[in-house]
């Protein structure tokens, strides 16, 4: 690929226009925003509306090093970005040649645990 941004150059406008055509105004609560990821290939299979994924066993970490005068530093490093994931998700779509579109909210509540915790307390 001559320019690594070619997928976003070619398809960015189309994706944004589709989002704007379907954006809904909502009153109250956390407003939805959109996360778009373009796959690392020019052979695009389409746009997939998918949830946020999770790469298994992939975490940020640190690389420590010590300077010549004895001071200790840490480089923060990311994990492997090309781990295959099985769940239907943004990362799985991207690695299969799809542009991922994920609607998101800032509300981080784990709604599936609320009833259980209420019962426990």
């Amino acid at each position, binding site marked *: *690929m*001559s*320019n*690594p*941004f*070619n*997928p*976003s*150059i070619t398809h*960015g*406008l189309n*994706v*944004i*226009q589709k*989002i*704007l055509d379907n*954006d809904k105004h909502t009153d109250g609560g*956390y*407003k*939805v*925003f*959109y*996360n*778009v*990821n*373009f*796959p*690392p*290939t020019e052979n695009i299979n389409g746009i997939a509306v998918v949830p*946020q*994924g*999770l*790469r298994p066993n*992939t*975490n*940020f970490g640190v690389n420590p090093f010590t300077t010549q005068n004895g001071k200790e530093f840490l480089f*923060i490093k*990311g994990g492997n*970005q*090309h781990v295959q*994931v099985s769940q239907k*998700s*943004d*990362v799985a779509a*991207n*690695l299969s040649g799809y542009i*991922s579109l*994920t609607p*998101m*909210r*800032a509300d981080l509540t784990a709604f599936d645990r609320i009833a259980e915790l209420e019962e426990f307390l």
Partner: protein
Amino acid sequence: MRILLTNDDGINAPGLQVLEAIARSLTNEKNIFIIAPSGERSGVGHCVSYNAPTQIERISENRYSISGYPADCVLAGIHHVMKDDPPSLILSGVNRGNNSAENVLYSGTIGAALEGALQGITSIALSQYLGPESKKNVKPI
């Protein structure tokens, strides 16, 4: 449509130029404002300059750099640069590298879009996944 463009890779990043070209297809030049960090701010998430002021520098017509973070850029756009006629759309990116899966939680690109949504404005984060086919052609910022 008035559009605010920002990113976390910095005001000179190639992905921001991609976004500028896209924005010119959506509205006229006068309605496009670019407010981006002065340099690389990847991995800062939704960080804001809460404990120290952030410097804003006008580079040219409708183009500004911010010494702080991507979310600062959104706040600067809505509440300072464009306060008399705020943006109706915020585009953040195009990020150098993917912001899928757990990367979402670290990304300054996402942090800017999140701040835009909290301010009630339609916001889209855009990122370019790099792979074996494309990574070798990316210059470090």
